[in-house]
């Protein structure tokens, strides 16, 4: 087995990228998938900006996007663009959160709603609604607080000289169900107008979201970017079994805490903005992984998939029963699940998670 020293060792399916003196491996298939996803996403975004109560030709949309004067400035730039931006960011945030939590839990069924983030957010928010706090100036902060609090509780209870993946997931799901029960209790105690409003919030909706919601979300996500970049590398060490990782000198406890924390913050902020649009976090990472066929869940492709699912779902939610607008959460699963099912049916990876 002689390898050309200058070529380096290239595992199958990887390309060696040189940048100056640095070298890194690029998974070819993942790169192709990411590129294709980005193209499709761009197309869907233009379509999103074109379609609505009044149709705008694509050329005009591009004009607005590139800051040229256009008669459609109001419809495209002021009404549709900010809402779409929120959709993109929320989708990407949920997907990355789901990917990280699935990695730590080593379980494809794990997601932020498995470890209580969504339920904590819902319990606090719906509780507040039941007691007459319905202002959207307050509710997002409550749901972020609820999500982080719930996850912190789960982490504290699951920690015992380390974070065992199964223990973490089980205790998380126990808390999640308990918190959901409390939410249901609030729902049956309130009158049905509150129940209806709560139901829409719990389904997840982008109605009436604009720059006011997009800006803080974008800043938080930007601030989280270093953590996510770190996570792409850290993911690999956690996916090994505990003994191997420890033998290789990985500080499992810290790495897991970092990954969970990143995922929880992303999911909480996204929940605060749009409500718990749950299935994005569950479906997007698995869709991305089955497309790239990588060993770990690919974060960039997950983010793109999540963004695509949410924007596409919102486009359908706006137009399907127009003038009635459905909450986006009704359709995220309807958009994402069939594709995942198709990937499973057509799948070439039988036994892999």
């Amino acid at each position, binding site marked *: 087995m002689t390898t050309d020293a200058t070529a380096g060792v290239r595992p199958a399916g990887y390309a060696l990228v040189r940048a100056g003196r640095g070298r890194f491996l690029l998974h070819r298939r993942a790169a192709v998938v990411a590129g294709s996803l980005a193209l499709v996403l761009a197309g869907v975004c233009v379509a999103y900006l074109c379609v609505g109560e009044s149709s705008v030709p694509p050329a005009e949309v591009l004009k607005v996007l590139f800051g040229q004067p256009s008669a459609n400035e109001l419809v495209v730039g002021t009404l549709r663009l900010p809402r779409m931006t929120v959709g993109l960011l929320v989708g990407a945030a949920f997907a990355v959160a789901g990917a990280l939590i699935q990695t730590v839990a080593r379980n*494809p069924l*794990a997601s932020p709603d498995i470890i209580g983030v969504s339920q904590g957010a819902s319990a606090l928010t719906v509780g507040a609604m039941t007691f007459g706090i319905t202002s959207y100036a307050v509710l997002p902060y409550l749901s972020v607080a609820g999500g982080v609090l719930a996850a912190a509780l789960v982490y504290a209870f699951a920690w015992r000289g380390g974070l065992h993946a*199964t223990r973490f997931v089980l205790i998380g799901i126990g808390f999640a*169900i308990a918190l959901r029960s409390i939410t249901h*209790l609030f729902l049956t105690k309130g009158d049905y107008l509150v129940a209806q409003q709560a139901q829409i919030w719990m389904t997840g909706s982008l109605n009436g979201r604009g720059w006011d919601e997009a800006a803080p979300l974008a800043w938080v996500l930007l601030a989280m970017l270093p953590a996510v970049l770190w996570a792409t590398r850290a993911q690999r060490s956690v996916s090994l079994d505990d003994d191997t990782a420890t033998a290789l000198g990985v500080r499992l406890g810290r790495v897991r805490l970092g990954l969970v924390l990143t995922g929880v913050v992303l999911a909480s902020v996204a929940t605060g903005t749009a409500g718990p649009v749950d299935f994005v976090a569950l479906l997007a990472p698995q869709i991305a992984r089955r497309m790239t066929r990588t060993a770990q869940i690919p974060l960039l492709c997950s983010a793109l998939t999540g963004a695509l699912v949410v924007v596409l779902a919102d486009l359908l939610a706006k137009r399907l029963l127009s003038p009635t607008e459905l909450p986006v959460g*009704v359709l995220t699963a309807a958009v994402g699940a069939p594709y995942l099912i198709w990937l499973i049916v057509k*799948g070439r990876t039988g036994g892999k998670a």
Partner: protein
Amino acid sequence: MRAATSHPRRALVTRRIGWTAAAVAALLLSVLLSLAVGARTTAPSEVIDVLLHGGHSDAAEVVRTMRVPRTLIGLMVGAALALAGTVLQGITRNPIADPGILGISQGASVGVVLAIAFAGIHSLSGYVWFAFAGAALASVAVYAVAASGRGGATPVKLALGGAAINALLASVTMAVLTTQAAALDEFRFWQVGSVAGRDAEVVGQIWPFLLAGVVLVASVARGLDALALGEDVAKGLGQNVATVRIVGGIGATVLTGAGVAAAGTIAFVGLAVPHIARAIVGSDHRWVLPMAALIGPVMLLVSDVVGRIVFPPGEVPAGVMTALIGVPFLVALVRRKAVPA
């Protein structure tokens, strides 16, 4: 060698028998509580007297017409969901598998939502068949997805297929509920899960299914043990893996359908009870299944009883109390020992 291993083995059997006896005692106690406690509390001696000799006092009427059916439903639903959860965790080899996450409960919910919204059905005994049909269709869909493609119905494909179908069905439920306010108003009370207000008719509708489910599940106990060692080992041990999955899956579906139809979506029992049972008697399914069938009703009946007295004069539905009471037990047991994943 054999002499050396026989002693711990005997200790294990003794422990299992001891715990099973304790669980039976706990079950009898919770049944008695469920018959005695409520807005009008009856003395246990009086309850037993009513059960044995009848009578027509007010207390006797309350016990006979309201608490006996309620207790029976609690017993049946608790056992059904616990058994279903145990089997599903065994089939998918996933510790967080339960009827909820695999879409079976969601299928039942879709059936009920559609019945309320479009078929004009507004009675519990009317819901039952729709819940059943929904659960059955969901299970068939999950298995069809998982079994297609390469490698057949592997645990991972079953779990992911279940999650995908669950998501799809949830969006159907949400679509109806967000567009039909009246349906939401009715559905939110069913969704919470409760064993109250069911009459003897529901018991009569449910028990044949429960019996069939128990028989199916019991027949695959050894197969689940083999499956826990991995598919190849299971095949090597002479188990037909596909048969174990299909028979176990049908059993779990029938049980879930019966449980959800009778009491709505009670989430926690199917997930937590199998883990609690395994923590007590080990991983042998011939012990875990009976243990789960004992603990499930205890958890549900105790939750129901606590729900009756915790916020008088109203009641907290059993579906809500179950998780609130069960979580401490789950946390304590899961923290106590390494969980067999």
